[in-house]
């Protein structure tokens, strides 16, 4: 049932905002709410599919980001200079350039340079989705790497020296001693970085991936009910972020290493 937003509100097309016929009266909201647009028609279906795409995109990009982050974060601390340089270049270049530019770069710039067969496969399987995964994953991998590096940096150097003295190789020392501890140390900053990834997945709408923000815009376009559509999208993002943050706060408490973690307010 349509509700009147304010006294004197007139039902009618509200978007684009119609200029007042006689004189302009700012701050008088002339908008008729109609929340039923969110469950009538296809809106619900659109929102659900948008949510699913957002989750898929974020999950796949997150895996890529964590792999790249661990790899480059660890490489930045090894004694071999060329490896360290390569990792430093990757991190400093990719995290200091806007995600939107990377979206365009991976979507418009890279596919034409690929071999023919790969191109054909990509264009048959939703190239924008894969480009968005690579853009998000590579960008957040660079940011994740900083998180991981600071986690490794927080581990006393003596632990590494002790593992050397025990006869472990460098690789073994990282795999068995440094990384297991570092991974626990980085749960709080890692969580806030993962939430950034989830929120940044909304940038994928610019290369027309049909994720949550894209579907919100679609509802707005079809129903001309901007406030209702945006409210739905915003609430879904909020619910996602808050619930992940709550779960991770519990995980953090569960896996905290007594004495090693100075518990700070998780962001």
């Amino acid at each position: 049932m349509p509700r009147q937003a304010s006294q004197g509100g007139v039902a009618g097309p509200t978007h684009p905002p119609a200029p007042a016929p006689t004189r302009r009266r700012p701050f008088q909201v002339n908008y008729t709410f109609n929340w039923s647009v969110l469950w009538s028609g296809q809106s619900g279906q659109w929102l659900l599919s948008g949510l699913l795409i957002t989750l898929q995109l974020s999950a796949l990009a997150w895996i890529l980001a964590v792999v790249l982050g661990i790899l480059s974060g660890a490489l930045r601390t090894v004694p071999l200079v060329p490896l360290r340089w390569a990792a430093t270049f990757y991190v400093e270049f990719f995290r200091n350039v806007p995600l939107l530019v990377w979206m365009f770069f991976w979507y418009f710039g890279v596919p034409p340079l690929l071999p023919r067969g790969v191109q054909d496969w990509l264009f048959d399987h939703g190239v924008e989705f894969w480009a968005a995964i690579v853009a998000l994953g590579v960008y957040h991998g660079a940011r994740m790497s900083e998180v991981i590096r600071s986690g490794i940096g927080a581990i006393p150097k003596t632990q590494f020296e002790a593992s050397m003295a025990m006869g472990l190789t460098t690789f073994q020392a990282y795999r068995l001693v440094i990384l297991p501890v570092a991974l626990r140390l980085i749960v709080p900053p890692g969580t806030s970085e993962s939430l950034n990834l989830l929120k940044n997945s909304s940038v994928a709408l610019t290369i027309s991936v049909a994720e949550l923000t894209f579907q919100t815009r679609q509802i707005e376009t079809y129903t001309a009910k901007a406030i209702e559509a945006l409210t739905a999208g915003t609430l879904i993002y909020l619910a996602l972020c808050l619930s992940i943050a709550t779960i991770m706060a519990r995980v953090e408490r569960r896996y905290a290493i007594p004495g090693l973690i100075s518990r700070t307010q998780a962001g």
Partner: protein
Amino acid sequence: MDFSVVASNFQFLVVQGLIGIGPFVGGTLRLAIPAIVLGFVLGIFIGLARLARAPWIRLPATMYVEFFRGVPLVMVIFWIWFIIPQLLRLPIPEYGVALTAFVIFEAAYFGEIVRAGVQSVPRGQVEASTALGMTATRTMVWVVLPQALRNMVPALVTQMIVLFKDTSLASIIGYVDLTKAAQIVNNREIKPFELYLFVAVVYWICTYSMAVMARRFERRTA
């Protein structure tokens, strides 16, 4: 690969896109600099409000921060884009929409930095100024904030870099910044790889020089 496309459009990309002088209303710097200044000013108020003893000041500020940190910036831009014309019954230019969205959104993040900075100032400083007979406002302005600011510099610069990068999202609503300028040129030239790589390098030069300057500043004041 043919980078001559960059040379022939260099003026449009840099003068129009980055600086904002040209036929279009645009410019990354013209958007980023006011957004950083205003966002920080609003952030100071929000950060201090979160530390207020009165719950009716503290709770709204906390909700503000939690809300905007849980929502994507793209969403906030769309909100402002639809809501402000509804409220004011005026068409708002993209510049106003983008600036409002960035200030409101980034103030939440700046607020958290300010809060952490103020909390990092030892409690004895406040007690000493109270003992000297300073009012709470004067203590905050002349004693706590100057010291807090110094502690905040690294986090502040990081956030400024983030904001600078985020201004690229203004191109979604049609503001001609560096990213949009590259899109415009690309529509004509169809050289996406070269153009977007160039834009990435320009962004990188800007953000990296900000980071280097911050490091130098830190070393001098530390």
